[in-house]
Every structure is written in C-alpha cells, then in structure tokens.
C-alpha cells in the first residue's frame, strides 16, 4: 500500500529515545475469551501463546534487581494464564505499584471468579476495557452480551471497594473508539462516563483512560475492510501534536512479550519490532543501563500515540 502521508520519523523531526524505565509491562500471552474488533493483539480463545515459567522467573528476577516502580500486567486477558495466580502473588510481594489489564468479563466465569478476591487482597489496580456507555456500541465492538456482563463485574468490584473513595482500591476504565475515529478529550468523556454509569447502574470508578486505536492487528483489518484506512491515517497525521513526544509511553515503558522478547511498547510487540539500536532484545540479557536510554523503534503506527492529546496505556498524555 502506498502511503500518502509523511513518515512518522519525518514528522517527529528526529529520533525518539527512552528516558528510564518506570513501567515494566508484561504480556502474559494472547489468550482471551473475547475477540474484540479493536484488539491490536488479535487475542482470542484459539491463541496458544503463553509466557513460560522460566520467562516469568526472569521477569521477577529483573524486578527484584531493579526498583522499577510499576508492574503492568496485560495479555490477552492475564487470568487465562494457568500460572497467573502464583505470578501475581510474587509480583505483589515486591511492593511495587501493580496493575492488571483485564477484559473484565472473565471474572464472571466460575473458574476465574477467585481473582476478584486475589486482586482485592493485594490491592491490585484493575484496568477494565469499557469502550462505550451505550450497550449496543460496546456489544458491537466486544461481542454480544459483553456490556451487561461488564456492568455485573463493575458492580462486584464496587462491592469490594474498588472505585470507592478512600478504599485504596483503584478501578480504571479504558475507552477505545467504537469505529474509525479518534477519541475525544479524556476529561469530557470521563465526565460523560461517570454520569452515565452512576445514573444507569450506580457504578463508580476512578479514572477513564482514552486510548486511540492503533492501525495494527484486528483494528487495521477493520479499517482496510471498511475502506477507512487512508482517512484514519490522515486524521492521525493531521492531529499530530509534537508536544506529545515529551511523554509518549515508550519513553518510560519496557514491554516484555510472552516469549521474553523486549519491546518499546505493546504495539511494537504485535508488529514483531523488538528493541533495537544495540539494546538487549531478550529478558535473559536484560541490562538496565543499555535499555534505559535506548533509541526507540518507531513507525507510522506511532502517529496513534501522538495525535491530539496523545495516547498511552494510561490514556491522554498532553
């Protein structure tokens, strides 16, 4: 496909370099009981990629050796990794800020319901994908019946104190646009979510993270199938905001793939772009000094994190 837009490197006018590792993001594998249409991971029940015990042990060893403040566990949905409970407990024992990105609905399955208590016990910050406050939009994006099940899960989390003031139990939601458009301003959407969820269901949460859909994986296929790819890329390019380059997540995050390979972000992981420019590419050769200031591997998908108010795993950045 020929590009009609300038390359990201050209637009960013220079190289992007990391400035330390604040967030150690671990992708436990691509298994999920949903197949959301915006999923850049293309996660699903058929995926077999799962982090091995030796790689898990190497992650823990690196975290023990270095005081990286945040452990961010993602997937797929992490609960479907059979060793996740033990791994989570070991992560919690390190006393860092610990967060889990869950698909939410898995917690209603009998086999996985115990994670509600495990998360509560270890004060894990729970991040749940909740793309839209309209039932039909969320179901269209994440699957039939998902909206109602998410409501049920959020109520269970609220009952345990999640999202309630003063509980110390953090419940954050993630908004991803339900189509070929960019997310609106986070504070506007957060206000809208807060009011709608409170009025309709009596649900409370802490923060809403607005995440721009990346033109990769299943979402890229959607853009191409619906003839939206060029328009979407142009919308991203036209919204390029140089101020976001100061705080893009690759500056402070290291992403560890299920197989132990190291990436600048979860998106590069899906594109198979390991860290480069001389930094070690696998957890077994982890070297903080060489990784902390590594040059980031960029591509045109990086327009996704730098459009408008920017986007990261924690939402807006500028």
């Amino acid at each position, binding site marked *: 496909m020929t590009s009609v837009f300038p390359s990201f490197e050209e637009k960013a006018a220079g190289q992007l370099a990391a400035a330390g590792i604040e967030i150690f993001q671990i992708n436990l594998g691509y298994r999920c009981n949903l197949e959301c249409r915006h999923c850049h991971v293309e996660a699903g029940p058929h995926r077999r990629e799962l982090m091995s015990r030796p790689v898990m042990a190497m992650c823990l060893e690196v975290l023990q050796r270095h005081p990286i403040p945040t452990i961010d566990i993602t997937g797929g949905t992490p609960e479907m990794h059979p060793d996740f409970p033990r791994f989570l407990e070991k992560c919690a024992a390190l006393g860092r800020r610990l967060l889990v990105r869950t698909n939410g609905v898995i917690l209603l399955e009998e086999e996985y319901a115990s994670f509600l208590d495990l998360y509560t016990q270890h004060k894990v910050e729970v991040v749940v994908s909740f793309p839209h406050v309209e039932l039909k939009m969320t179901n269209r994006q994440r699957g039939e019946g998902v909206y109602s099940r998410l409501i049920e899960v959020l109520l269970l989390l609220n009952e345990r104190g999640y999202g309630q003031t003063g509980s110390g139990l953090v419940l954050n939601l993630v908004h991803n646009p339900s189509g070929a458009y960019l997310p609106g301003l986070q504070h506007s*959407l957060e206000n809208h979510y807060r009011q709608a969820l409170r009025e309709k269901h009596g649900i409370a949460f802490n923060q809403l993270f607005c995440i721009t859909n990346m033109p990769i994986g299943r979402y890229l296929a959607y853009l191409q199938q619906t003839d939206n790819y060029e328009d979407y890329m142009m919308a991203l390019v036209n919204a390029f905001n140089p101020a976001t380059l100061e705080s893009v997540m690759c500056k402070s995050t290291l992403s560890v793939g299920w197989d132990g390979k190291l990436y600048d972000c979860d998106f590069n992981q899906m594109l198979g772009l390991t860290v480069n420019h001389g930094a070690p590419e696998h957890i077994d050769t982890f070297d903080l000094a060489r990784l902390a200031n590594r040059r980031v591997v960029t591509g045109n998908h990086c327009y996704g994190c730098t459009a408008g108010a920017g986007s990261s795993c924690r939402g807006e950045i500028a």
Partner: protein
Amino acid sequence: MADYYEQKDLADFANIGEYAPALGEKYFAYYGEAMKDGALSAREKALIALAVATTQKCPYCIDAYTNQCLSLGVSQEEMMEAVHVGSAMVAGIVLAHSTQMRKIIKKKEM
C-alpha cells in the same frame, strides 16, 4: 466546479489565517473558547455545532462535527435528534415567514 468541497480541504481549515494572520489568530482563540467545556459541556456544544452544520449545509462542518460527536461518545439517536431540532427550526423559520405573505394577502385581496 469539480474541485469544490473536496474532503481533504477540511484539513486546510487550519490555514484560514493565511493573508490575515492576526485576524485568523483571533478567530481561532475565539473558536477555542466558545467550544470548550463551560456552562455547557463540550459534548452539548458538539451537538449544537452539528445541528448548525446541517442547517447551514456545510459539508466540512458536518464531517468535523459528526466525528467530534462520535469521539465524545454521543449516540446516533442524540445526533439524529439534534439534526431534527435544526430541521424543525428551519421549517419553523420558513413558516414564520409566511406571516409576511399572509399579511400581504389580507391587505391586497378584496
């Protein structure tokens, strides 16, 4: 005629200050202030803008504010109701002008 209203020209809106930069800057400052969260939310303002865009039949604005409404989580039903408000207003404005016609008829007919 073929080049009028090209979709890509929407991106040129950022350049309307060309040839009159001081005025352009003032306009964008005003536009930004008027559209941000205030006594009305940015969401409500986007719906008003969408209604104006359709009544004024501006394809650029319809494109921009349909996208803006989607981005702000506005539902299809809310957007269509906003268009109907615009439509009802336009119909009312047309009908209100029949007052002139009716006054003239009453004056002129025997």
